[in-house]
């Protein structure tokens, strides 16, 4: 046991929610995001550029911060992040051509899958199969249950229209979820933040804190309706989804069941029509 055989330094330790040097990542991606948001508010940013820029800066930032946890401020980190940014840029630009072109965003998870075979440290974020395989259908069931409940409740209470067809917008949104949205959110909020805080503070503080951050991230999504009831409903469901995702990560040691839960939930969410 290490406590008998390893050196112990009682003065060493880490304070703060985020790892040392992570401020560099915040600065690197936060500055362009703030500038972009200001330009957008002033109306100086064309819509296509805002869409692509937002995709690259926001999701790239989330991904860069997630990868910072296992790789640190290193050359490996840069080598992992730059192709991911290029993939996001290419995918964003191609998405402008039409809904089906959005599937080009799938290159991001492919790149991360390839990267995890080259950099074993990345697998510690949860890019590994669950200890028990039944966690995968369990994750899907939890996401499906929440999604169906959302559909029923929102269609009954708020009068939202639910429709599968036309399939184009649904698939376009799904490609975004599958290629970018779920990948960056799961890697950062469940893989990195929850993983780190779980190890340091225990399950519940970590789950509540990381889920709060993830809800915040979804609430600033410009595509979400701005009404109070919609925001309250979204917070409610996303909070449940986040807590369930943390539980799945804790039980399975993998991000895949949680990602499946999110995928099924968002698949249901994408069936709404304004």
């Amino acid at each position: 046991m290490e406590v008998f055989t390893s050196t112990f330094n009682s003065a060493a330790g880490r304070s703060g929610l985020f790892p040392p040097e992570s401020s560099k990542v915040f600065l690197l991606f936060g500055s362009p995001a703030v500038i972009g948001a200001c330009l957008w508010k002033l109306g100086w940013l064309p819509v296509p550029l805002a869409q692509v820029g937002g995709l690259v800066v926001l999701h790239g930032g989330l991904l860069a911060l997630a990868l910072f946890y296992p790789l640190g401020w290193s050359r490996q980190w840069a080598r992992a992040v730059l192709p991911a940014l290029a993939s996001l840029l290419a995918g964003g630009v191609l998405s402008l051509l039409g809904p089906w072109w959005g599937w080009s965003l799938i290159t991001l998870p492919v790149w991360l899958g390839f990267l995890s075979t080259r950099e074993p440290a990345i697998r510690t974020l949860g890019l590994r199969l669950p200890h028990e395989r039944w966690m995968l259908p369990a994750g899907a069931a939890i996401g499906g249950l929440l999604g169906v409940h959302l559909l029923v409740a929102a269609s009954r209470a708020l009068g939202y229209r639910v429709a599968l067809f036309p399939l184009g917008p649904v698939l376009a949104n799904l490609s975004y979820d599958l290629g970018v949205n779920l990948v960056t959110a799961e890697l950062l909020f469940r893989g990195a933040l929850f993983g780190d805080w779980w190890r340091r503070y225990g399950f519940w503080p970590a789950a509540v804190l990381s889920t709060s951050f993830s809800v915040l991230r979804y609430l600033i999504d410009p595509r979400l309706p701005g009404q109070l009831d919609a925001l309250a409903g979204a917070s409610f469901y996303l909070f449940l989804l986040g807590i369930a995702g943390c539980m799945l990560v804790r039980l399975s040691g993998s991000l895949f069941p949680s990602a499946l839960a999110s995928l099924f939930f968002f698949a249901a969410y994408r069936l709404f029509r304004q």
Partner: protein
Amino acid sequence: MRSSRASFVVVAGLLAGVALLFLMSANEAHSPLRHLYFLPVLWAAIRFGLRGGSLVALLAVLLYAPIVLLLMERGGPAAEVGEGIATIILLLGVGSLTGRLRDRAKGEALRHRGLAQLQRAMAGGGELPEILERAVTVLRENERAHEITLFLKFSESDPMFLTVGPDRSPRWLSGASCDLRQDSAAAWVLKTRTVLYISDVFTDLRIQKEPSWGPFPRRLLLIPLMVAEECIGLVALERHGEFGRAERASAQATGMEIGIGIEHARLTLRQRRFAEELQAKVAAATQNLRELDQAKSDFVSMTSHELRTPLTAIQGFSELLLAREASVERARLFHQYIHQEATRLGRIVSDLLDLSRIELGRGVELRRRAVDALPLLERNVSLVEREASGHRLVCHAEPQLPPVYADPEKLDQIIQNLLSNAIKYSPAGGTIRLVAETAVVPGRVDISISDEGVGIPPESLSRIFEKYYRIRNTATTRVRGLGLGLALVKSLVEAHEGEIRVQSQVGKGSCFVVTLPQHSPETTAAAAPEDRRLD
């Protein structure tokens, strides 16, 4: 397991029934029927604790929330909407709070049960390692630890390491595998006597220089085992999963109990061992007293016999001389017999007196001077030659052997005793060798007397120089003696600053070697005044 499933089925059915009833009877948030939701929530919280209570409360909220949303959408009265939201909060609060209280109560009950189990484990019989194995195994189960290690430092040189892992079999570690680094976390806990919690062994920078995430956090709690002001060791608990503050406090309290329990067990064992040792000593002392009593009785009996035999002879021959006239030759022979027996009687009395003086601490006066070994040996051989029928007596001395520095009379007594024993204990005859030679130790002379007699059993070798000790076996039962000879010899040899040793093999014979100082001007000066007392 089966009861849990049944419980979940009941809860699900109850919830479904309530939901149906609610939706069918009153589609309004303020309907009094909404309070029915509290029944399954409370039941699940009491039955399954925080997890069950929270889960069922969440299900209830999921069923109830759409109705509240509907009311909000329709722009219903604010009071009713507020009532609906309050119901949602209450459902979640009641479920989690009741479940938490139930968990805490159950935790306390489990802790008390665990302590009772621990006390039972430590109160059971057996040696300390056995007790510790039982206690640590019980502790591991109670604390739901992945692995538990007990380190005890009753002695600095030989600490005790006991580990019980997932296979539940206790393992004692020794040697290099359990070296305690002086700058390790365990050493820090022992030094500071404070509890140390490591939230994840893989990533804690206090213990890892290059942290990397494992598949799950490895929580470690190190609890010093305190007895009064002394730290007797520590317990290291490792858990894979959650290790809440309340659980850590509970484990810490248990650790304190263990420390006291171990100390009690150790003291009880020590007391038991002490009692056993005392019992053994008392038994040995009693046996010694019995032997001593028997030896005294034997001594009195033998002394009477030894004294009466020569006295009877003296009495008989003197009566013969008085009663009738005898020829000159015959009278001379009778006088010779009387003289021999008187000499023997005198020797016995002299031995007894010497020993008595030694026992009383009065000492024996030595008049030491240079004595040549070979003439001394030859003179003693000639004295006993008549008794030694069937024995071959061989005398040998190393050429140019320096003289021995000794009292000639006492040296005669030593040689006569050893020679007499050699003859007595060689009933079948054989060769008796008397050899004088330079000892291995410089400035000393060895005088050895060896026989081919019955020999001495190994178990008696350490006792033959004790007073009144006689070897009891069939080969020596006919040999007369008081058991004083060798004790006297040893005392006399030691008074000469010498030593005596013996080698013997049963059935092959014995060899007694007396080592004495050589005569030289230095020894003479060192021994001044010339006379030395034997104390």
